[in-house]
């Protein structure tokens, strides 16, 4: 089984690194980690990429092409990041916008409607640490969870398994890592 972890850890938080390790252990062999900071993944879509978006060749960058290939082949996608301003860090937002273009993740049909294209995907999960209370996240809306388990999920097969794990301020990180290990292991 091929699993892909997409991790963004802009402040090098050791807890996020610990989560990535726990996810790797729980997933077993056949796992690959994309550490967006270590790879120096470019956050911002360029003017050339924007112009290419609705053409037959929307990908211009080799780095993006490699990641797109990995996404299309993956059976499991796990996103790991610290929540900042109610959603993923900018680099992860940019990763989705640049990698998941027409032909990857989704396609346009003849009427220009979006159709799902993540045919190999069986499990989709997100693991995050929150910088605000559960109440604040609920009242403003959890942008990361919506983006991954609603917007991205629309492009997965109907029976995809999903999981969401969040660590709120004040909760015990050690217990959280155990929970991550257990839940990701059962995906």
């Amino acid at each position, binding site marked *: 089984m091929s699993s892909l972890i997409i991790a963004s850890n802009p402040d090098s938080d050791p807890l996020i690194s610990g989560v990535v390790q726990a996810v790797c252990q729980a997933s077993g062999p056949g796992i690959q980690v994309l550490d967006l900071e270590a790879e120096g993944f470019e956050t911002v*879509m*360029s003017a050339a990429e924007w112009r290419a978006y609705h053409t037959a060749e929307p990908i211009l960058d080799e780095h993006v092409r490699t990641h797109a290939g990995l996404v299309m082949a993956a059976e499991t996608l796990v996103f790991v990041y610290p929540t900042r301003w*109610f959603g993923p860090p*900018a680099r992860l937002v*940019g990763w989705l916008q640049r990698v998941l273009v027409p032909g990857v993740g989704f396609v346009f049909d003849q009427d220009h409607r*979006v159709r799902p294209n993540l045919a190999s995907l069986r499990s989709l999960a997100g693991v995050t640490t929150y910088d605000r209370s559960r109440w604040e996240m609920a009242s*403003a809306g959890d942008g990361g969870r919506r983006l991954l388990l609603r*917007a991205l999920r629309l492009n997965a097969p109907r029976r995809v398994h999903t999981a969401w794990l969040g660590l709120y301020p004040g909760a015990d990180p050690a217990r959280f890592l155990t929970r991550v290990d257990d839940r990701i292991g059962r995906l």
Partner: protein
Amino acid sequence: MLVIHAHPSTESLTAHLLGRVLKGLAAGGHEAGTVDLYSDRPGDANDLSGVDAVVWVYPTWWSGPPAIVKSWIDQNWPASLPGVQAMIVVTTHGSPRWVNRVEGEVGRALILRGLRRSCRRHCRRRWIALYNLDRANRRAITSFADRVERTMARL
């Protein structure tokens, strides 16, 4: 007022909408500064003191603002901005409104609910959005641009 604009291309609909926003604001007698996140140097927009309204002009990609906007927010948006009494978003969506509802309207929640928490308590919110752009005709686009300009003039 501060207008925050983000689009990689000057030939885009979003760039045209920025022009309409500024025209409308001028007609309404509002003084507005503009930050263009794609062409200004980082740091140009860091001074938010004295701003009483923020107008966001961007295309919606994957349910929210372009990553360059989130990057600016992550680096610049303060925990407290009590002078801001209006948050206004002008945006376009490729897909229909119902799809965006299902996806959770991430950009709308981020700016009008999340970032608004920094602003004055009874801060006004406006959401001015064109949906279904991928299949919209010229008339729908023009009438949206007219609506944007009218709304700005009347703020």
